[in-house]
């Protein structure tokens, strides 16, 4: 039986993490640049139809190097455009989640008592529900193709985990002696919160936010895949994959290209987030 001390728990791939982290960050930077400038830098528009080139596989013509779909739309432009939309939605939805989650979690953890019990009961109940299902129903009922509703609906899913994490950390910080030391030193409640609690939460919030972006992108793609997200001719990675999956018999590149971009995007964010967690979040060590 191999015994182990905590210091030895890291395995070799974990020790190699810094390099992987840098690579992931670089890939994210490239994808963000593509999303920012890619669509405008191309001669084509995401919605322009080219009847002369229908369902061209990648690499066949110089004009459409990644090929076209069955309506002759340029796959490269559609993919970077979808990437842009997915990224925007992912980041904004994460912002919504982080705002709600941090506010909810610190309030519950800091005030404690009945308010805490009540607020966490709400989270528990929502947690036990197939929450994405409810978002799905909401999206179907109110917001087919409506980006603002979509954003709110997705953002409303992610805050639960963050609220739990932040609350647990606030609680454990509150019990730490340095918080008591701050109160004994004559700091007021808000001062303690601002000077000693929030700075110590910042690391884990950053980590969870990084890990949440890919999750939000998945949720958006998920809704778009089910036809509840962005509506054609606009495209997100999810709706592109949906369209591609329907034609994978005849034009597999329509599935493989956007799926590949999504995989690289999600993988990079996950690796970066996990790496950040090891660096920043002392509670996970």
């Amino acid at each position, binding site marked *: 039986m*191999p015994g*182990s001390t905590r210091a030895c*728990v890291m395995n070799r791939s974990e020790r190699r993490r810094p390099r992987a982290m840098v690579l992931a960050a670089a890939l994210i930077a490239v994808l963000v640049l593509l999303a920012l400038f890619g669509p405008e830098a191309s001669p084509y528009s995401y919605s322009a139809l080219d009847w002369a080139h229908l369902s061209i596989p990648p690499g066949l013509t110089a004009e459409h190097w990644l090929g076209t779909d069955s309506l002759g739309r340029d796959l490269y432009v559609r993919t970077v455009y979808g990437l842009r939309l997915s990224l925007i939605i992912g980041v904004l939805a994460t912002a919504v989640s982080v705002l709600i989650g941090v506010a909810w979690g610190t309030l519950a953890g800091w005030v404690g008592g009945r308010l805490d019990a009540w607020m966490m009961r709400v989270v528990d109940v929502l947690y*036990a529900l197939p929450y994405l299902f409810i978002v799905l129903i909401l999206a179907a009922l109110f917001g087919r193709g409506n980006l603002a509703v979509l954003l709110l609906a997705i953002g409303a899913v992610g805050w639960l985990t963050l609220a739990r994490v932040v609350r647990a950390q606030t609680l454990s910080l509150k019990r730490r002696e340095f918080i008591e030391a701050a109160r004994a030193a004559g700091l007021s409640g808000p001062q303690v919160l601002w000077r000693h609690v929030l700075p110590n939460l910042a690391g884990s919030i950053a980590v969870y936010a990084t890990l949440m972006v890919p999750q939000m992108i998945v949720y958006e793609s998920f809704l778009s895949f*089910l036809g509840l997200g962005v509506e054609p001719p606009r495209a997100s990675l999810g709706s592109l994959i949906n369209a591609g*999956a329907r034609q994978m018999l005849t034009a597999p590149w329509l*599935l493989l290209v956007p799926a590949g971009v999504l995989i690289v995007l999600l*993988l990079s964010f996950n690796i970066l987030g996990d790496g950040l967690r090891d660096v920043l979040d002392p509670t996970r060590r």
Partner: protein
Amino acid sequence: MLGYALRRIAGIVPVLLILLTVSFFVIRLAPGGPFASGRALPARTRAELERLYGLNRPLLVQYGDYLRALAHGNLGPSYSMRDETVAGLIASGLPVSAALGLAALALAVLSGVPLGVRAALRRDGALDRSLAVFAALTLALPSFVTGPLLALAFGLWLRWLPVAGWQPDTPRDLILPAVTLALPLSASIARLMRASLLEVLGASYIRTARARGLGRARVLWRHALRPALVPVVSYLGPAATYLVTGSLVVETVFELPGTGRYLVQGAIDRDYTLVMGMVLVYGTLTLLANLAADLIHAWLDPRVRHEPL
């Protein structure tokens, strides 16, 4: 232990009731109605239909009626698929969805736990390192990506397995969907299992057990495995939630006649009773799964039983 279980079961009922109540009113708040969308019905027919289903009465009365019917086990008729009852639709779809979910869960647990244990015991071995890659990949891949990709690879290119569809009594139809659904779950479980077993193996009570000369196998099975399983079991709650949502995608991708399709279509069609029925079914399922996870947790760790709720 029994008291704990009973208290927890009793806690489900109010949650379910709240869920149903909120859903009931939210669905009706949405613009449109079951007979307004899409189909151009003559106004008279529409009014007639609404009167028939009691949709013209005050909301609170409708709510009371619905609960009363529910108490008698009556989920009502479907508005969009006439001639069908909600109960009938669920009865036809649920076996498919349940088979898919259970198969995926079994697959994930039966592969994830041994993988994780093995990786922890041979840290840095080949298996451990491939597990890290496998986990990173599958966790980054949503099932609506893996599904089509697997179908492309195994169904269309290799032609080993059927790509879509469902015939009763042909388990082969279930393999690809179940694997698609199980992959990320299996990776999560393996990762959790590895991390928690490593942590437990580093605990002082494991050193004590070894100092008693109990032998490798006994220390692992009797002293280490049970506490190491705790995080895995706690994860089964969220896992159930994942399975429920994931099955929706997988059923769409592989065109399985499960219950998943009723939810989205029901919501789009404003089929109030059908959506309520789906909320009831899936809500109960996830709540029960969370409950089961908590009960197993309490059994694994005697300290939990004494904690007040």
